[in-house]
Structures are given as structure tokens and as C-alpha cells.
């Protein structure tokens, strides 16, 4: 019996090692590549061979990369703030009040959050782009190639997600905390802002972080609704990063840019690990 047990243990640790290796190797390799001298890039090496900041310098000083980071931050922060503002009152109504049509409404919200975004691409384009389109003709506003076009379109996935996760969090809070406020004659708005808001901070941080990451990573809308390089967000900027000639892919720059935009997200995710996992499962399993 002793021998199989040892084999089990070895097998288990090999499996653990394999999982860890597979998870971190690609990012490790990107870091190694990003610190190479441009002349060494095309030699495969598994360990750091040199430490050169040339790729970083080149990606940060040439082109619009810094500007792209700024665009991403502005868009993601605005869309998360907007979704939170609308989400918390909506979540209170859905989680704490019984009314007819609540189930159907929840189903619609879940449906929109899992929506194939490409199915609204043409309609959204009509709303946010210029020349003789609905947005400009009827509403008199032209959002094309602005941050607002992205904030507007990102609402389609951040808002339903925020509402859904906050609803599951709010539903789990005990009835008693609200009852006392009702007996004291508090209005529903007071209940939300004075009773629930202070209790909801952990949930708000989780939801906000997940919505922020989703907005930070978005590609389809950002690619479609921005037309100038200076308005691009980070994912589009990286995807369209090109070298001095059409046939030369600047891998060193791309890897440096990748490391710059990914490192903060990875650190954020690791710092808020537990919260993120609870938010993901609230959105997924407990729903």
C-alpha cells in the first residue's frame, strides 16, 4: 500500500507543477522578451539573458501608447461609475422588494449581460457615429471618435453585470437591518443610501473591479468606434501596434506594452483575489 501512495503524491505534485508552469510561463516569457535588446529578440532563450529598457523606452516615447492608456482609464472609470450609480438602486429594488415582473426583469438583465455584442454593433454604430445618422439627426449629438461613444456602448455589458452581482449580494443580507429603518419611517431612498450603502462597500469594490477589468479589456467596440490612433484604448493600440514597415512586427515593443498594461491588472487581481473569486461566483453560480 505504501508504494502506490507515494506514486499518488508524486503524480499530484507533478500535476500541481504542470498547472503552475502552464499558467505563468507565457507571461514570464513576455517579460523576458520585453527586456531583451532589439538585436537579441529573434534568438529563443528561456532565461533572462540581458536587461535592456530599450523596448519600453521606444513604446512609451513613440506613437500614442501613453495616450491610449489614458483613454482606457478615462473610459473604464466613467463607465464603472455610471453603472454603479444606476446599478445600486436597481439592485435594491430587485433584491429587496417583491413586485410583479421581477423574475422576468432579472431574466432580461441576465440575457443582456450574455448578449452577443456584435448583434448590436450596427445599431450602436448608427447611434454613436457621425454623418447623417440617427444620433446626429434626431438627438443632435455626434459621439463618434469620443470617449463618450465607448462609455455609452460599454454600458451594455457593465450595467447588467453590476446589477446582477449587486442583486445577489443584497439578497443575502438579513431582513432585520431593513426592518428597523422601515419602522423608523425611513424612505426607500434613505434605506438605500443610509442602510445599504455602508454595508455594500465590499460588494461595490468587487463589482467595480470586475466591471473595470471588463471595460479595460474590451476590444470590439473600441476597434469600431474610434477612428484616430490618439483615441484608441490600450487593447486596440496593442493590436494595431506596427513597426516602421508593414512587414516588420515590433515584437519587443508589443511585449513591453503588454507587460505595462497587464502587470497592474495582475497585481490588482492578486491583491483582491478573494473578493474577485466571490464576485465571479456570485455572478455565476449563486446568481
Amino acid at each position, binding site marked *: 500500500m505504501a508504494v502506490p501512495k507515494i506514486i499518488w503524491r508524486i503524480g499530484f505534485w507533478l500535476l*500541481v507543477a504542470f*498547472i*503552475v508552469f502552464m*499558467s*505563468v510561463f*507565457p*507571461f514570464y*516569457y513576455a517579460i523576458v522578451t520585453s527586456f531583451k535588446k532589439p538585436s537579441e529578440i529573434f534568438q*529563443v532563450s528561456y532565461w533572462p539573458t540581458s536587461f535592456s529598457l530599450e523596448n519600453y523606452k521606444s513604446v512609451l516615447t513613440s506613437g500614442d501608447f501613453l495616450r491610449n492608456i489614458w483613454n482606457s482609464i478615462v473610459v473604464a472609470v466613467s463607465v464603472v461609475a455610471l453603472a454603479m450609480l*444606476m446599478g445600486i438602486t*436597481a439592485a*435594491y*429594488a*430587485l433584491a429587496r*422588494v417583491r*413586485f410583479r415582473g421581477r423574475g422576468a*426583469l432579472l431574466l*432580461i438583465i*441576465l440575457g*443582456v449581460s*450574455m448578449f*452577443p455584442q*456584435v*448583434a*448590436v*454593433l*450596427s*445599431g*450602436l454604430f448608427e*447611434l454613436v457615429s457621425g454623418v447623417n445618422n*440617427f444620433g446626429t439627426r434626431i438627438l443632435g449629438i455626434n459621439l463618434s471618435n469620443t470617449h463618450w461613444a465607448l462609455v455609452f456602448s460599454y*454600458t*451594455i455589458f457593465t*450595467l447588467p453585470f453590476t446589477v446582477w452581482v449587486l442583486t445577489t449580494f443584497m439578497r443575502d443580507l438579513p431582513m432585520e437591518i431593513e426592518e428597523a429603518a422601515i419602522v423608523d419611517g425611513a424612505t*426607500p*431612498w434613505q434605506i438605500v443610501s443610509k442602510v445599504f450603502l455602508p454595508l455594500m462597500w465590499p460588494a461595490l469594490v468587487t463589482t467595480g473591479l470586475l466591471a473595470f*477589468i471588463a471595460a479595460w*479589456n474590451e*476590444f*470590439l467596440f473600441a476597434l*469600431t468606434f474610434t477612428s484616430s490612433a490618439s483615441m484608441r484604448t*490600450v*487593447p*486596440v493600440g*496593442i*493590436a494595431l501596434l506596427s513597426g516602421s514597415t508593414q512587414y516588420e512586427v515590433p*515584437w519587443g515593443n*508589443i*511585449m513591453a506594452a*503588454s507587460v505595462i*498594461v497587464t502587470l497592474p*491588472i495582475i497585481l490588482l487581481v492578486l491583491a483582491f*483575489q478573494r473578493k*474577485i*473569486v466571490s464576485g*465571479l*461566483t456570485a455572478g*455565476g453560480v*449563486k*446568481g
Partner: protein
Amino acid sequence: MTAETSFSQAPPPEATRRSRLTAQRIRSAWIFLTPMMLALALVAGWPLFRNIYFSFTDASLTNLGAAQWIGFDNYYSKITLPSGREITSGLLVDPEWWRAVGNTLRFAFLSVGFETVFGLIVALVLNAEFKGRALVRAAVLVPWAIPTIVSAKIWAWMLNDQFGVINDVFLKLGLISEKVAWTASPDTAMTAVLIVDIWKTTPFMALLILAGLQMVPKDIYEAAKIDGVHPVKQFFKITLPLIWPAVMVAVIFRLLDALRIFDLIYVLTPNNAQTRTMSVAVRENLFDFDNFAYGSAQATMLFFIIALITILYITLGRVRFDGGK
């Protein structure tokens, strides 16, 4: 309410107070919901409606306002030439579109299938108690945290035909005899996309399944151990049935995500017929080929195909989003 009114003419003051309170709560609930519903109608409902409308017109990218109604022509039309020959055109008889549908379905089922198996394995590992579990869990989160475009680029670099690390390793191990153009070659493009997608999304699957695993009471296993049930049998007879609802929900979330895939394919294998999915085809027609109306028709069809798959999955799989509570 009816019971109260039949009792006496004037209901007790306590009851009216409560029903007034309920009415007030319901009223403010709707007020609270209004901004969200308006926003969703504006960013989801209206654009979807317009998309469906465009699919019945001849709209072009440069002049959407001048779109004319042409009925079902984008979907199917038949013209009889003077010579008597019939020519059919439209989405329903477009082989390229059906190829994109096939690509999407193949990609979605393969990637979600592998992710479920790998996610299950990773979740079981993370559920075991061992030294350094927190570190392993942190490592597993890394692929999930990397933006899709960034992971597409990192893998494109690793899979590079000339300078990629994957070819280097495989050559050294003798798995391949010459360098493979993973992302460009028709034979391997889909495999490359699948590898990157599975790598990127297995953590999500693992975390959702892990949450299900952690809700399984520990004493069940102790009872099974006393009865001498083999660990493998324990897994299939106890663990799997108990976590099945969690797995089903995780699968539908991933399936819907996979069916609409765009970014990874657009960046990793551009202009490749072997990996062109529905979403990629729609965007190409809308904005690159100036077939705005035709692209809208494709998008409409994509919407209904995904809706159909979802409804089938939820009814056949009896998915419960409340986790069986």
C-alpha cells in the same frame, strides 16, 4: 385583502398601513429601476431593433439614412434570368456564412469541452489541502487576469513560425521535424485559437467549479470512506452529481462567451477562412466590405442562433441559476 374586506367595512389600521407601505415600496422600486431600464433600452434594445431593421434594407455604411426597405432579399432571393436559369442569393444559401457558423460551433464546443475537463481537474487540485495552495491559486488566476488581446499577442509571439518558443521546444523534443506556421497554416490555425482560448478561460471554469466543490459537505466523504468506497467511484457517484448544477451554469456562461468570440480570432489568425467565426464575418461585412445591410442580416441570424442554443441548453439541461437553492 379579500378576507379583510369581507370581515368588516373598515379594515384594521395596521393592515392599511402595511399595504400602503408595500405600495410605496413597489412604487419606489419602479422609480429605482427606471434609469437602468432606460439605459438598457437605449444601448441594447434599440440597437438590436435597428440591426434587425437594417437587415431588411439596402443600407450602406456611408449613408445609413438613405436605407430602403427590400424585404427578405438579404436572407434569400431568387432571380430568373431571361435564359430561364435561376440564380439564388442571400445569407441562407451563402456557403461562406455557413462555414463561419460551422467554425463558431466547432470552436465553441471544443473549447468549452476542454475547459470543462481541465477546469474540473484544476478545481479538484485547488480543493485538496496541500502546502502552497494559496500560491497555486494565485498562479492559476494569472491567465484570467491577462487581457484577451495581450494574451493573443503573447501567444502569437510564442507560436511565431520563425522565432517562436513553441517551435523551438517541439523541435528539441522531436515532436515536429520542421517549423510549423501555427497561426497561418490552415491545418493548425483552429488548434492555435483553441489552445489560447482554453489557456485563457480554464481559470474561470476552475473557480466556478471550485465554488461548487466547496459547498459539498465534508462528512459525505467520511461516510463513503468508512463504507470503503473507492476514490474514483466517490468522484463519479458523489462529487460529480453534487457539483453538476455549478458545472452546468459555468458551461452556459462560457458557451455564450465562446459563441460570440471575436477579439482573439481577429488578432491571432486574421483573414483565415478556417477560423473565421460569425462575429468576425459580421464585422468584416459591416465595416470592411461595405455590406452593411448584409452584415446586419448576419448579425440578426447570429443573435437567433445563439438564442436558440441557449434556450435548448437551459431547457434540456434544466439549468437553475439559483444554484439549486
